[in-house]
């Protein structure tokens, strides 16, 4: 197990290197003028495009440009993001905790709701409850995130005013944030550690609508897979054997069928968590939630190369780490899987 983890962690720099060569290489398909575009916001600046290209070495050869990026990256400098108006490394440091916070709030409900509804649907196959759950799945699958997000804002914020609107914290608490000592970067947790339960509650309330959006959309995927897995498991030989042994429905369904059905759910959950940690692009944008997803949307729209590269590096680490955890969990759930 230890060797397996070390091997996996050693993959990180290799993945990052390949990824960075690919991304920087792809950007060479753009002309120097196109790569200078992020620095130009006005006609007046456009007049000086040549100076902008020159001062940033955008006409240098690919090895020179890549070497420059790699050299500064190895010194811990991922460059400056035009989209955030800050260093890439500082932007990730500031925004990733917010994304992790939202992930923590959403990942567990997504899994629990998905597994529960998927199991229920399978156990009541073709009955009324199954039909209702299938409608929910279709709803979650087909409703675009931005439509659902705006709809939730309109209902819970604009109409009933029971939940706050966009943002991470209310205006009244904005100035107080500066006095908070930051431990984790996760605002709700840091507020609790500072004894500011009012701010913590405010932050959590601001997360409810984005979380609800993500839970609705993503749990639908788990429900669908879980339902199919359960249906397959319920017709398998080992379940039939368990029933023949006179075991109760609860034991058969829960211990024998559901445990096996969960195997592929672990993989799916891994992908979902990777997705959530990479930032929920549309949800974060709609709710003005200051995570990495919102930033990367802005960066992509501005052809912010430093930000895109930085985000890719961060994603590479997330993918390798989460995949490793998923594989280890696989070994725990299924003893047939061995790593060493």
């Amino acid at each position, binding site marked *: 197990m230890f060797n397996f983890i070390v091997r996996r962690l050693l993959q990180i720099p290799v993945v990052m290197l390949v990824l960075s060569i690919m991304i920087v290489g792809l950007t060479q398909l753009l*002309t120097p*003028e*196109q790569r*200078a*575009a992020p*620095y*130009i*916001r*006005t*006609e*007046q*600046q*456009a*007049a*000086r*495009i040549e*100076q*902008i290209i*020159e*001062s940033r070495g955008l006409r240098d050869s690919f090895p020179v440009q890549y070497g420059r990026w790699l050299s500064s990256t190895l010194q811990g400098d991922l460059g*400056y993001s*035009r*989209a*955030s*108006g*800050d*260093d890439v490394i500082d*932007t990730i440091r500031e*925004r990733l905790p917010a994304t992790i916070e939202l992930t923590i709030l959403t990942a567990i409900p997504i899994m629990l709701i998905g597994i529960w509804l998927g199991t229920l649907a399978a156990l009541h196959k073709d009955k009324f409850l199954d039909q209702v759950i299938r409608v929910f799945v279709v709803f979650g699958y087909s409703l675009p995130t*931005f439509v659902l*997000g*705006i709809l939730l*804002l*309109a209902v819970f*914020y*604009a109409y009933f*005013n*029971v*939940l*706050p*609107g*966009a*943002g*991470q914290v*209310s*205006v*009244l608490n*904005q*100035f107080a944030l*500066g006095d908070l000592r930051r431990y984790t970067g996760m605002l709700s947790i840091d507020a609790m550690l500072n004894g500011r339960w009012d701010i913590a*509650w*405010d932050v959590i*309330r601001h997360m409810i609508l984005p979380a609800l959006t993500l839970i609705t959309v993503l749990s639908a995927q788990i429900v669908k897979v879980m339902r199919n897995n359960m249906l397959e498991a319920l017709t398998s030989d080992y379940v039939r054997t368990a029933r023949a042994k006179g075991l109760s429905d609860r034991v058969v369904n829960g211990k024998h069928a559901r445990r096996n059905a969960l195997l592929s759910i672990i993989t799916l959950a891994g992908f979902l968590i990777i997705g959530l940690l990479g930032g929920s692009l549309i949800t974060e*944008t*709609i*709710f*003005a939630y*200051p995570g990495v997803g*919102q930033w990367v*949307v802005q960066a992509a729209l501005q052809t912010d190369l430093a930000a895109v590269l930085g985000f890719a590096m961060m994603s590479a680490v997330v993918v390798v780490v989460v995949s490793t955890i998923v594989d280890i969990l696989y070994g725990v759930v299924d003893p047939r899987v061995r790593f060493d």
Partner: protein
Amino acid sequence: MKKLAILSTLLVASTAFAAAPKDTLVYQWSSDIPTLDPAATYDTGSGAIVENLYETLLTYKGASISQLEGLLGTKWTVSNAGKTYTFDLRKNVKFHSGNAMTCTDAEYSFERMLVTNEGSSANYIIAESLLGTGANANDDKTITWARIDRAVECNSAGQLVFTLPKTDPTFLARLAYTGFAVVDSKYAIGLGEWSGKEADWKAWVGKDLTNSKLDKAPSGTGAYKFVREDANAFLATAFDGYWGKKPALKNVIFQRVDEIAARQQAFLRGDADIIEGGGRATDTAQLKGKPGVTWVDDLPNVAATALFMNQNITDKGTLGSGKLDGKGIPANFFSDVNVRRAFSYAFNYQQYITDFQKGAGKQRTTLMPDTFPGYDAKVKKYTYNRAQATAYFKKAWGGQVWKNGFVLTAFYRDGSAAAQTIAEILKREVEAINPKFKVNVSAKQWSEMVASGNEGKNPLISIGWAPDFADADNFMYTFYSSNGYYAKRSSWKDASVDKWLEQTRATTNTAERNRLYSLVANRAYEQASHILIPAGVNYSFFRDTIVGAGKANYNPMISFTLGTYWKELSKK
């Protein structure tokens, strides 16, 4: 069910119903704030904030764009045939850091602009006046430390002295630009910015200050001081040590909310005092007339847009056959004044105003704002007239255009609905005149458009210009001079116009300059140099609790959406 009821009760009970507090201005927008360093400020997002944290020597008097008044400069004299400007600086001014402002700070600030002068900054504007060139020392080897040092100095009386290489009637207007603010030199040097000395000036030439130490921790003399900036919010608070009248609003918060629907909901609920709108049509439909909303219309627009008819198209790929044979155009197709007049009469100005600008548009006589000194309303303007267009097309190129027809491409900036509409209106109208006329409409990316424009590759393209400083020169020279920034877009060259425009730069006599601008405008009409696109009428809207905003206080040269500084606003 019971649990759900308890949860709902809890949510309702804990709802803050947080309308924006009375002492706080809440603004929601979708822009980023690239920098808080004045020497790198060259966009509206940064400008809207920097103009309130920092102060310039001069500013606009109320809503006027022709009258300047002292801000950090209290008095100034002009001598040496308009080449020396001596400023008395305001006394007892403190920076947010607590340091007192002295002439050394002002000298340092301007020298820092001239030394760095990075390509995407606005510093070239001040360099043009003070050094006679917009370049920095890397691009122009004749720029030495001695030249920079001589341009801005403090005299023994503590006055700031600017020495220009030649007369520049636009100099004072340039000084009002947000980015040319006074920074706290002691504080900046302490942070690790340029030392202000000759020893390390070379190392700072061309340096991009967007992400400078001052960007992270600004310290100006403005009525508001920086508190904090995070991923989605910028916070400022009233500066207790401000030299002027204490601002009524204690706090200002800019919240970044990209989604227009979310901004609108916050605005209608009163959680935001002001928001960035979604364009006239959207804002009129969604917000105008709603409870609690104040709508101000008929505000001045200081941008100008033109359709450029390029008289020397350098991209053969856009010329088709390259001949007047009905399958293309020659590179100098627009060099015939009859073609240009025909196109000018063919554009349906009123339709653009009615359909695209929703009736809120205005035709101008010249490519400059009608509120600028030097604008001549008496100059004739083209109107949509199909008969006249036909007549000129028949005259063009000795009748060849009418007989053989043509195929040309009109480009527009990808994503610009206005530019696309302009191109499509022109296409429809021109093609309706003669079935042999064909206008293809094609989108270009911004960067591609810039590059091709600089090389004179686009046959027909619409481009706008927003001013850096409130002087006619910023438009007239840009659009009409063969040495102006847009010269290559149209390749239009008129010896008289060039001469008149150079004369406007050599005199500080306002009446004489205005006379010369009228001559230029009349000549441009006569020669149909460009197609003048109607200018949209500006508007603004805000919560009715806001006091101090409105038409009387709206200055279009101020970046903040209400056209006023935050210190002028209060809430009831």
